[in-house]
C-alpha cells in the first residue's frame, strides 16, 4: 500500500532512531502515525508495518490489540475524548460526558452517522489541574464548561474546524 510522502519520511526517521537490529522498536510509533493518515489500522497497514520492521504481522496485530489509541474501526474526523477520571469527575467530567452523549445521540466509542464526530470516555489525560478536560484528536481543551462543549460540538457538527469555532480555545501551544 502507499502512504503519503510525509508519512514515508516520518517512517524513515523512526527506523533511524533505533539500533539496526532493533527495528521492531518502530512498530508502535509507525502504527500511531499511520493511523492518523489511514483513520484505522487495517490488515494492509499491519502487513506493511510488519514488513518494514522485520517482524511478523501477528507480532504487529498483538500490539494493536493492547494499546487504547490503536483501533481497527475508523473513528470520526474529530475524535472527542472526555476525561472522567478522578480530578475531572469531581468537578463535572461526568456531566460533560453525559452532555456530549446526549447531544450527539451516540455513546462510548461510537461515531455520528455523517462520520464527523466520534466519542470516547477516556482515562486521565494529564490535565488534572485544569479540569474538566477534553481532547479533540490531539488538542487539549481545559476548564471545559457545558456551554463551551455545546459550542464545540455544534461547530464540529456544522463542518467547522476546531480553531474556527468562536468561544472555544484550545490549550496546547
Amino acid at each position: 500500500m502507499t502512504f503519503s510522502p510525509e508519512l514515508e519520511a516520518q517512517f524513515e526517521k523512526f527506523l533511524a532512531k533505533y539500533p539496526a537490529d532493533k527495528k521492531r522498536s518502530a512498530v508502535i510509533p509507525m502504527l500511531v502515525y499511520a493511523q492518523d493518515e489511514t483513520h484505522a489500522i487495517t490488515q494492509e497497514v499491519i502487513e506493511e508495518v510488519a514488513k518494514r520492521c522485520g517482524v511478523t504481522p501477528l507480532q504487529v496485530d498483538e500490539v494493536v490489540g493492547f494499546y487504547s489509541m490503536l483501533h481497527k474501526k475508523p473513528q470520526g474526523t474529530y475524535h472527542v475524548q472526555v476525561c472522567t477520571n478522578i480530578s475531572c469527575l469531581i468537578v463535572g467530567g461526568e456531566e460533560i460526558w453525559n452532555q456530549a452523549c446526549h447531544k450527539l445521540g451516540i455513546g462510548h466509542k461510537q461515531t455520528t452517522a455523517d462520520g464527523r464526530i466520534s466519542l470516547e470516555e477516556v482515562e486521565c489525560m494529564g490535565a488534572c489541574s485544569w479540569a474538566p478536560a477534553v481532547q479533540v484528536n490531539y488538542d487539549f481543551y481545559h476548564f471545559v464548561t457545558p456551554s463551551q462543549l455545546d459550542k464545540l460540538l455544534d461547530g464540529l457538527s456544522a463542518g467547522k474546524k476546531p480553531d474556527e469555532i468562536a468561544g472555544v480555545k484550545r490549550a496546547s501551544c
Partner: protein
Amino acid sequence: MRYNDPSPLETPVLTRRFRLPNSQSIDTYLASDGYKGFERAIGMTQDEIIGEVKTSILRGRGGAGFPTGMKWGFVPRTSPKPKYIVVNADESEPGTCKDRLLMEFDPHQLIEGVLIAGLAVGAQQGYIYIRGEFRYLIGVMDKAIDEAYAKGYLGDNILGRGVKFNLATHSGAGAYECGEESALLESLEGKRGNPRIRPPFPAVAGAYQCPTILNNVETFCAVPSIILNGGKWFADLGSPKNGGTRLFCLSGHVNKPGVYELPMGFNLMRMINEVGGGIRGGKKLKAVVPGGSSCPILKADECDLAMDYDTVAAAKSMLGSGGVVVLDEDTCMVKFALRIMRFYAHESCGWCIPCREGTTWLKKLLTRFHEGQGQRSDIVMIGDLSKNMLGRTFCPLGDAAAMPTIAIVEKFRDEFEAHLDGKPCPYEHINAFSKSGLAA
C-alpha cells in the same frame, strides 16, 4: 506556571524559566545558565557526577521515591554492552500533570539532564518515551532536540569535547501500564506493555537487555541544577532525606488549582489553604489523595503533615507522583472508589491473574454498591479482595488498585453503609460541575 498563576510561596528551580519569553528555545535556555551543568559534568569523573546526585538526595519523582544517585550507581559501567538512558514521559497517573509542563515550557532542561546521566554511566543513546496522547509534546521535544544537534549539544562529538550522545523521542499508544518501568521497556522494544519479572532490574538489563537508566521527566530535570549548584544546595532546599523541590499538581475542590513548585516537606494544609486558596464555596475538606490515584487517601484530620516521602509514608500513604487531589465534604467516597477501580480494571494489562481478576471483580462489587444493590458482607469482601491482590503481581498496578480501595473502605465505612438497603447515593443530587468554580 503558564497554565495557572504562580504562588508567592513557590521555590522555582525546575520551573524558573517557564515564564521567560520563548522559554522553549535553545537561545533562551543558553542565556539562562542552560547546558552549563552539562559542561561542568564533562570535566567531572563518573563517580563525581553520581556522588553529587547522591548528595542532593534527589529521589525518583515518578512515584516510588527511590534515591536517584543510588539507582545510577547500580549500572555496571564496565559492561561491554551499550548503555541507554530512557526518560519516562508516559505521565498518566490520575491527578498528575507536571511532566507535561516541564517538556512544554523547558524542553532543553530535560535534554541536559539526560546528557548528564549519559556521562555518569557512559551511555551514548537516549530515548524519551512520551505517551501517545501528548502528540504536541513530541513536536516540542523533537524541535528542541533538533536545536541541540544544530548547536552541537547532541551528536558524535559534542562541543568538540569527544562526547557522543544521540537522543530521540518515542511515541506510546495509550496504556497506563507503560508508565511502569519494565512495561515501558517492552513497549519501547515494540511489544505489548506487559511487565518483566525483576531482578534483573533495568540498571543491569533494561532496553534491549542492556544497562539502562530509567527515570521520570522531573527527576532528569532536577539534575542540571544539582550539577551546577551542587548536591548540597539542592538537598538543603528540601527536608531531611528528601532533597530539593517538587512539582505538586493541585486539583479538585480548591480555589486555585494548578501546578506549583514547592520545597519537599511543605505542609499539606498550607498547600491547600495558602497555595490553593482554600476549599471552594466555603465547603469543608473531606479528604486528600496525596500523590496520584494509587496512594491511600488521607482524611481531613490526617492532612496536617509535611509532604515528603517519609512523612507521608509514616501516615500510611505515599507521596507518589505529586498529584494532590482535594475532595470537599460533598464528594461521594463510594463513587470515588468505584471510579478509581474502573480505571485500574481498564488499565490492568492482564498479565497477572490477581490484578486482572481482582480489579474486574472489585469494579463489579463497587458498581453494585454504588447503585444501591450492595450487601453488608460486600464491604468486608471489597477489603478482603483488595488485600489479596497486594504483593502478588509482577508490577505495582495490582497494589495501586488495592491500596486506595483498602484505605477508602477503612476510613469511610459509614459512607458504604449509607448506600445499603437500596438507599440512593446521599450525594446523587449534587452536580459536580457546580463545584468546578467555572460559570456554566
